[in-house]
């Protein structure tokens, strides 16, 4: 059997491989750390809070040694990529091996070297590609190799440029599998083949998302915690970000806010369902902001929103009732009608672009909070993890979600966030590299 230039022979080997891949599919099984190949720091090192916790934990038992041995053979060839092609953004994760021996380096083909250098020596690619350096995971062990995981994003409409680059750098000559998820994996499959001579391994985005979340959470457990929440979310002066230990995560409501929103109920690592979704997501925020303010990027829109005041745009309960609507327990500050003040011409003329951007952000965020809360109630789940690129550098929305969930559930629901907010699908795709076809 030959897979991408990698030889595997003998029945025993095939069996081993199957077992390995099963192990790889179960990244979170902390109780079975001894037989897990994926880097999972043991409970002890997590408690100790060591500075270099990410290492391959191995028992000295012979089966594990055997596995490592077979892993070497079964290991996918470099480069290791995972891709998530969404409606607005392409998310790319790249594993950069740092343990390359001199011998290996000599054997390394030119195109591979070129890709590695290009990606790791830049933080921006072209006008729109960006490497989120602050998210980089260093000293990571993956499939027996040590290295860094890089997180890169660029707009989906720049995909042709990316493919051209892949062609220029002779990516296809590496015979690697490119694992891709997100709608674009399906939509652009033909483009990958015709423009860059690349064959995609298409993966389901929700499968990848959950795999990615569980994996990242399992490998990052000290230093900057992956998972966090806001303490005292309803008191702006005391509201503070705190680390959260997501050790026993189930059941969990996972809300992915990309261009649109998907809400998943996760009961175990391989038991989940998509509860619902909404089309009012990050794409709506940016789309409306572009139309209302003439801005063109998410960061611009967000910067404006930070400066604006939504109460000039929205009609609040107190605007209608003069104060709280006590009969129904509605506080005066609650929004009664999003953009409600804009029914009136004088008020339309007096608001700023910043106000409009802020109101758009608040409207979309509150709505996601509201739908999420109803799903949590219907599914009887108390923990909610929000992910997706809408939350990137968007503390405003995160605090608002934390506030809304806490306030309207009277403290029953907890809003959790993850540092690698938008990259989990791509990470999940990367993990499928050992499991091709």
């Amino acid at each position, binding site marked *: 059997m030959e897979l991408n230039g990698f030889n595997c022979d003998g029945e025993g080997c095939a069996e081993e491989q199957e077992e390995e891949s099963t192990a790889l599919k179960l990244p979170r099984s902390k109780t079975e750390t001894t037989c897990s190949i994926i880097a999972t720091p043991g409970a002890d090192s997590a408690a100790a809070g060591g500075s270099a916790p990410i290492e391959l934990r191995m028992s000295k038992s012979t089966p594990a040694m055997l596995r490592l041995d077979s892993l070497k053979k079964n290991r996918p060839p470099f480069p290791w990529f995972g891709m998530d092609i*969404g*409606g*607005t953004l392409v998310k790319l994760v790249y594993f950069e091996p740092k343990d390359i021996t001199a011998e290996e380096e000599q054997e390394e083909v030119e195109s591979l070297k070129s890709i590695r250098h290009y990606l790791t020596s830049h933080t921006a690619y072209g006008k729109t590609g960006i490497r989120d350096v602050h998210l980089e995971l260093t000293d990571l062990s993956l499939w027996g190799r040590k290295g860094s995981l890089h997180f890169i994003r660029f*707009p*989906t*409409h720049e995909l042709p440029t990316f493919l051209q680059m892949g062609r220029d750098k002779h990516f296809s000559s590496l015979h690697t599998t490119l694992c891709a998820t*997100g*709608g674009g994996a*399906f*939509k*652009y499959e033909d483009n990958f083949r015709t423009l860059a001579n690349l064959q995609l391994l298409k993966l*389901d985005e*929700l499968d990848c998302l959950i795999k990615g979340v569980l994996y990242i959470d399992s490998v990052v457990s000290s230093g900057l915690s992956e998972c966090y929440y806001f303490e005292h979310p309803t008191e702006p002066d005391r509201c503070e970000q705190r680390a959260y230990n997501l050790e026993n995560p189930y059941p969990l409501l996972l809300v992915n806010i*990309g*261009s*649109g929103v998907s809400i998943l109920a996760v009961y175990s690592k391989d038991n989940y369902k998509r509860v*619902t979704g*909404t*089309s*009012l*997501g*990050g*794409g*709506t925020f*940016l*789309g*409306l902001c*572009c*139309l*209302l303010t003439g801005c*063109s990027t998410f960061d611009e829109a967000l910067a404006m929103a930070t400066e604006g005041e939504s109460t000039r*745009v*929205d*009609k609040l*309960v107190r*605007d*209608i009732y003069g104060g709280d*609507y006590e*009969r*129904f327990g509605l506080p005066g500050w*609650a*929004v*009664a*009608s*999003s*953009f*409600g*003040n*804009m*029914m*009136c*011409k004088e008020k*339309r003329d007096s608001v700023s672009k910043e106000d*409009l951007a802020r109101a758009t952000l608040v*409207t979309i965020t509150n*709505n996601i909070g*509201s*739908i999420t809360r*109803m799903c949590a109630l*219907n599914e009887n789940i108390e923990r909610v993890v929000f992910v997706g690129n809408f939350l990137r550098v968007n503390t405003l929305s995160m605090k608002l979600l934390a506030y809304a969930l806490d306030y309207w559930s009277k403290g029953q629901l907890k809003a959790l966030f993850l540092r690698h907010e938008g990259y989990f699908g791509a990470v999940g795709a990367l993990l499928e590299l050992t499991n091709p076809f």
Partner: protein
Amino acid sequence: MALSGGADRGSHSMDKSITLPPDEIFRNLENAKRFAIDIGGSLTKLAYYSTVQHKVAKVRSFDHKAKETDGDPLYEISVQEEITARLHFIKFENAYIETCLDFIKDHLVNTETKVIKATGGGAHKFKDLIEKKLKLKVDKEDEMTCLIKGCNFVLKNIPHEAFVYARHADSEFRFQNTHPDIFPYLLINIGSGVSIVKVESEDKFERIGGSSIGGGTFWGLGALLTKTKRFDELLQLASKGQHTNVDMLVKDIYGGAYGSLGLTGDLIASSFGKSATTDKEFSKEDMAKSLLHMISNDIGQLACLYAKLHNLTRVYFGGFFIRGHPVTMHTITYSINFFTKGEVQALFLRHEGYLGAIGAFLKGAEEDNPNQYSWGENYAGSSGLMSVSPELNPVQRARSGTFDMLEMDRLERQLVNLPLLQDPTSYIPDTVDLTEDALSRDYWLFCFEDALDGVVKRAVASQKDQPEAVERAEKFRQKYRHKLQTLRHQPFAYGSLTVRSLLDTREHCLNEFNFPDPYSKIKQKENDMALKYYLKVVKSVEELSWEQRQFTLVKGLLAGNVFDWGAKAVSDVLESDPDFGFEQAKQQLQGMKTFKLSHNNDKILNHKLFLTDK
């Protein structure tokens, strides 16, 4: 949450004059009392109670034991004056409010009225004006409480109040049978924001949730995006747009469907998603449509989540976002179908716009115990669904001004379900629904219009002693003909259209012009005659052998049901041969097999045959 004051109408339009003679709108003001007013963002709804004096035809004597030879009439009908209670509800644009108040002030005679109940977001804005003009103290009532009270009232009293909307079906409106138990239900009120209320009984309801994305969002955001000011115009724009130009669909991301999740390619993945990634101009129509979908879907989704959490299946939608707008009823219906996979149906109400006013009125009329009586919609005095909907009927709108009316009469007795019915919910008294059956509808509307001259003639004849009867009869003719014309274009105007409702409408119109029963003279003559023959017939039947007797009874029964040959067929026979009698009717029965039944009348015939037992 109701829309408050934010409307774009300036006070400059306050001087608009009423286009119709206002005494046709604010009727029976002379003895009006118990006023209530509901002032929304653009429409005012006024309610009052009045009593109407009108003639009723009553049987004075009925004697079937009398001897044939007696000279005295055996059957007598007399016309009496009677007073009934009537509820009036009038809806008009806020711009007319001052003119209307002036008119009411000038015509209000009753002095016992001291307060006017007021609700709605605009109530405080017009408080001073109302108090100054009417010299009534404005007494504010909670909006939501009024809304729910009104909703309970219409659901209980008005048959076919609720309907399902299906834009592309043969009949857009599918009216629901009145359920004997209206509780529990969910009311989603889409004003400028959205309120979701769970109603469990007459007095128990709870606002279980809401959303700030509502009608105000459509209006406000729509005005910003399209520079179009009016709500109606925004809806018009939306109905012409293509949302797929602005929204990012599943297929825009996937190239096709997202198969493993069963999400079809045409689903909206991200509202306004294309305007985030494409740098181009978008048309006003397309943006308005995208906005409409975004808001409708969002409200529908929340409604479904709340319905599921509280295990409720009856979900009514109201508020100015919905009010008479086919566009929004369609998008909300679509959304509910999508999110519940058809398990929950979106229900709308014919008199949704009046709920607040009805509720406020009921609050003020508690000592009259209006809830202890049954009230029936007066078809003569009510405008019917969509009478002022510009998108549906621009001509109609111009003709009737912008006033919409609802009148309800107190019924003599409280209506209850027949206790013998096995399942009152599934019992439908009318065999043919003319709303759904276009062919039958045309036929029956033609029949009633065709028979109108005859009815007018009889009406005049029934009041020979009154010279002005001719004029009144002519007014009746115009009114009823207009109703028939309306029903031809809007068969859904008063709920399910049936032969019964056409007869009721005619009766209401006749009553309005003081013709309690045009047939009273004929009835008197014929019944008198029938009673004279009664004893003789009974005797002759008794003398027959058992078998003969059965045949005679069946024949008699069929002949007695001669009207069920078809109203038109019978009236043709009777018109052409005034002496057509019972014996002739029995003769006709011999040819029954070849008698061509009038269109669709066979059902009625069978139905009656088994029920009639004299």
